[in-house]
């Protein structure tokens, strides 16, 4: 068996790559765990695309304010130094390349950085994209946080995405439960493997030819 780290450990691993002063969007779902793992005492400014910079932790029970939510529509707080703005300004901020880092979930990531995270293409599914396509092209670095394999054991790192794309060539790095991989024009580069995982093992799990970073 290969070594796998859990989601909180993975969130901490991602947080370690985010420098103080960075402007960061954490998408919805698992990536929001990164917020809890950011180092105490360092200032990293969180953007939520529904119109705030300087997003704080979730509120204490009894302190929920329905006007103050994140992109996942969960209650949050505002830090001193926060600012509110409307949706056109918020997405202009993303599209204009002002965010340093964005962390997203994924169904599949291709070695060239193509991302599929909004639709499995299932014919009976109700399509919903939200801000996924804007986020995918809207940060200087786009990180993906995901398990390496689906529950069925298929690799989420692929040569070419089979699912409908969210963005083309947009992902810079993929943080998985098995290790960290950089995208590149000639295949994934292994940046780090957790525990005693080897490139050969991951290559076998994914069916990809992998190179060291």
């Amino acid at each position, binding site marked *: 068996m290969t070594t796998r780290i859990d989601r909180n450990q993975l969130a901490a691993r991602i947080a370690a790559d985010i420098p103080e002063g960075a402007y960061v969007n954490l998408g919805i779902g698992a990536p929001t765990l990164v917020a809890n793992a950011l180092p105490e005492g360092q200032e990293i400014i969180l953007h*939520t*695309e*529904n*119109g*705030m910079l300087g997003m704080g932790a*979730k509120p204490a*029970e*009894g302190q*929920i*304010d*329905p*006007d*103050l*939510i994140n992109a*996942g*529509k*969960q*209650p949050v707080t*505002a830090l001193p130094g926060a600012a*509110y*703005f*409307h*949706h*056109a300004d*918020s*997405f*202009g901020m*993303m*599209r204009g390349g002002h965010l340093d880092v964005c962390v997203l979930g994924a169904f599949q990531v291709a070695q060239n950085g*193509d991302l599929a995270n909004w*639709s499995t293409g299932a014919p*009976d599914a*109700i*399509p*919903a*994209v*939200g*801000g*996924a*396509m*804007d986020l995918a*092209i*809207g940060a200087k670095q786009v990180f993906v946080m995901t398990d390496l394999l689906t529950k069925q054991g298929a690799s989420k790192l692929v040569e070419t995405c089979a699912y*409908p*794309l*969210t*963005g*083309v060539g947009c992902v810079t790095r993929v943080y998985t439960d098995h290790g960290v991989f950089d995208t590149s024009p000639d295949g994934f580069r292994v940046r780090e493997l957790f525990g005693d995982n080897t490139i050969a093992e991951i290559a076998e799990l994914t069916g990809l030819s992998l190179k060291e970073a």
Partner: protein
Amino acid sequence: MIDKTVAGVADAVAGIEDGATVMIGGFGRAGQPVELIDALIEQGAGDLTIVSNNAGNGDTGIAALLAKKRVRKVICSFPRQSDSWVFDGLYRAGEVELELVPQGNLAERIRAAGAGIGAFFTPTGVGTQLADGKEQRRIDGREYVLEYPIRADIALFSALKGDRWGNLVFRETARNFGPIMATAATVAVAQVDEIVDLGSLDPESVVTPGIFVDRVVAVGERRWLDDGAFVGGVTLEGEPLVAGEESK
């Protein structure tokens, strides 16, 4: 004297015709003008096209409008939510049409309508199904897709305070689509917690100048603020809350 305030929500939504395009502010429940939507349901217009980020939560607001079969088409970015069972059912039954737009393109298309821009090249959606069939162009080494403005006959949205000239301020992330929708609709209608005297809003802090606003109606503190009872929204676990279940 200019007075854009109207006495009640029925006046605020008067004149909406069958087949109208209606923008509805809000992101999930935050900023969703529930009182105006209730008035629209009462008013009776049908065959509507709704432009909104989401397609309703729980059984109130946009969801209630959908449940009454008043909506022909929804233009939105994210219809599928944990509590969007009304839309989900209608969509699967083929009873409502959906135009899915990436959220930032939705916002920018609304802004373009209000700002007199004929069309714009955006990088969002390039190479995806949502850009299929759309004009594409490489500019300065990057690929862009051409998107067009979205206009509406009327916009319904929620703000915190307004004055009789229609100047508005918002509250926290409930601001979201309100300010841009106000610019893109023939008639812009704001529900506010409170109408304040002209001159009492700081001119440096007005978010939506009255030029964009046609009607302002006070609805009092929104229901989730009544007696600390929390109506709408979700728990920390993301479960929908219902009235009285949670104290603020």
